[in-house]
């Protein structure tokens, strides 16, 4: 008996260990993917951002520790950085304004149309991002209906929408809208309707119910949605390239120009890193402010 007990125990431990190893095996594909397509390029990109040019050989760089790549890049391109965050911020705001009522409707009022509406939200993504952005060129064309309408009201300083900041923000809002709607919907859909009923029963007005019950409970969705919209929007360059003008270039355009046109890989890498760092800082501040660390 005494001899048997320990052995049973050991078997139990082995099984448990095997189970935990299985867990690691399951992680393997994901970790490999991350290592190959994120960790290694990340390190290479960082090393590239510190490289120095070879005298007299354009496009050739050697490993170095040239911190000035960063300060030079920032000094030269701060307007584009600023513009990227402003555009992305405005687009995120608009996306939230459009997405919240829609997600609310789908979650609480759509009934049997719910699945269909969700499909409709995602449906445009079946067409390429690029083609959809091209379509906006037609929608916002000078001779088009929308521009004519706003011109009739005399609301456009340049008599046009296309190739202005308005068009870029509109494109960003549109292109990243599904990333706002889906997390909002997921958060709203989880809310127990009985909580709203209870609030109603306690004589709260519809607005108070929204303010005290629905909105706080949907905050994780708001935070996730704004992040999923803001981050790609800040780094986007297609909207600025196709819908903007020379005055509306964003940081993505500048990075692209440095990589492709100038073959200035260190500057482009440094810009990419500054963009990442700036987004990280903004995101952390935002999450802290929103007080939702435990919700995300």
């Amino acid at each position, binding site marked *: 008996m005494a001899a048997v007990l320990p052995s049973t125990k050991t078997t139990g431990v082995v099984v448990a260990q095997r189970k935990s190893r299985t867990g690691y095996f399951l992680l393997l594909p994901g970790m490999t993917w991350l290592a190959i397509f994120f960790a290694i390029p990340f390190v290479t*990109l960082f090393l590239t951002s510190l490289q120095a040019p070879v005298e007299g050989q354009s496009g050739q760089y050697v490993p170095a520790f040239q911190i000035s790549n960063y300060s030079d890049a920032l000094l030269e391109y701060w307007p584009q950085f600023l513009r990227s965050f402003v555009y992305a911020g405005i687009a995120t705001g608009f996306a939230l304004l459009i997405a919240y009522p829609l997600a609310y409707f789908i979650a609480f009022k759509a009934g049997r149309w719910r699945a269909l509406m969700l499909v409709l939200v995602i449906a445009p993504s079946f067409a390429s*991002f*690029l083609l959809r952005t091209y379509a906006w060129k037609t929608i916002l064309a000078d*001779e088009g209906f929308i521009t004519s309408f706003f011109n009739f009201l005399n609301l456009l300083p340049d008599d046009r929408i296309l190739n202005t900041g308005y068009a870029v923000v509109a494109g960003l809002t549109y292109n990243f809208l599904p990333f706002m709607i889906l997390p909002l919907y997921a958060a709203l859909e989880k809310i127990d309707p009985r909580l709203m009923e209870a609030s109603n029963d306690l004589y709260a007005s519809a607005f108070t119910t929204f303010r005290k019950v629905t909105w706080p409970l949907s905050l994780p969705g708001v935070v996730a949605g704004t992040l999923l919209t803001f981050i790609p929007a800040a780094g986007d360059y297609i909207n600025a390239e196709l819908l903007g003008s020379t*005055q509306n*270039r964003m940081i993505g*355009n500048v990075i692209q*120009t440095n990589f*492709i046109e100038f073959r200035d890989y260190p500057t482009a890498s440094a810009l990419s890193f500054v963009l990442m760092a700036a987004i990280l800082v903004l995101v952390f501040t935002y999450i802290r402010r929103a007080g939702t660390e435990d919700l995300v």
Partner: protein
Amino acid sequence: MNSHHPEAIAAIAQGMRSSVSRRRLLQAAGIGGAAMLATACGTSSGGSTQASAAEDLSDTEMKLNWSNWPSYMDVDEETGTYPTLEEFISSTGIDVTYTEDVNDNNEFFAKVRTQLEQGRDIGRDIVVLTDWMAAQWIQSGYAQKLDKAAIPNSVNLIPRLAAVQFDIDRSYSLPWQSGFAGLGYNIPDLKAATGKESLTSLDELFDPALKGRITVLSEMRDTMGCILGWLGYNPSEFTDAQFEEAIEALTKQVDSGQIRQVTGNDYIAAMDSRDVIAVIGWSGDVIALGEDFGFSLPESGGTLWTDNMLIPSLAQHKKNAEKVMNYYYDPEVAAQVASWVNYLCPVEGAQAAMEKIDPALATSEWIFPSAAVLDSTYVFMELTREQNEAYERLFQKATGN
């Protein structure tokens, strides 16, 4: 690394010829990402200057891979095939993979640069590159010497293009198409805005009545060539100070909002949708837009450029490549291509052949220019790499990058 789906881009190009940029096509679909990876993985090793040849598999492999710019080959509108190319395939049995994946000289170079520097085959037997990029390839030893005996038709090359600075006797390159950068405009809209029927100078292009309704090309040489000429300088021979003055003139027009956008081929879509009235653009594109559109060279001169066929080092089907070059230097074939692409045809005798296809095109000054027209154009000065980089930076800065 080629995650930029040439087929997809080609399909888009087919579908929306007019709205797709030949030079700077939607630098999207992860090209930036692809380039990032390409440069992140590639260690820079100094390029050799001697082109290396690979074992030529042409005799055993009836294949040819050809990379060209979009909308640069005659197309059968109904079937979507390329008639002249089909003819070549059926008469020689060489299976040609024709890919429209050159959208921008720099972007294409970024894609294949690592392989070239490391002395590897880029999987293409012919690439088509603009003069200055072709010059860089030849100087770096990325292009193989052509066997002119295998291209007897190359004697048909028009004299004006027979000798160029970067390839004095054309031993590495053969022109595919040439063209002009000049003034393109929508005739009725131009008349409505300014009362003029045509544009003849950059003064007229920068007329305040056209504010926000003009674009210029993102190809630095084409735009700056026209501006240098406008300021009274010679685009074939100018100084740094003159270039900087031209940049200032451009900046002024950009900052005032006169210039709406700086684009690659996208300007064609913008002209088509009438967002833009006048442009600095490319001859063939504007002509292809139709009767409402006009093209002219500014009185101060336009630029003349050539896109050249090169055989990359280590290409595996060199003889097949030379066969196809020879085929397209047959005047009859060249005329067929010219009747579709509307660019300057580099083949002597094609004008006579064009009489049979379309007599109106046979007299076109843009496809078969007279000496007078050619004399009013400049070939942009050949730049060293350092100059190129410095000028490109100034140009990009002036245009918002």
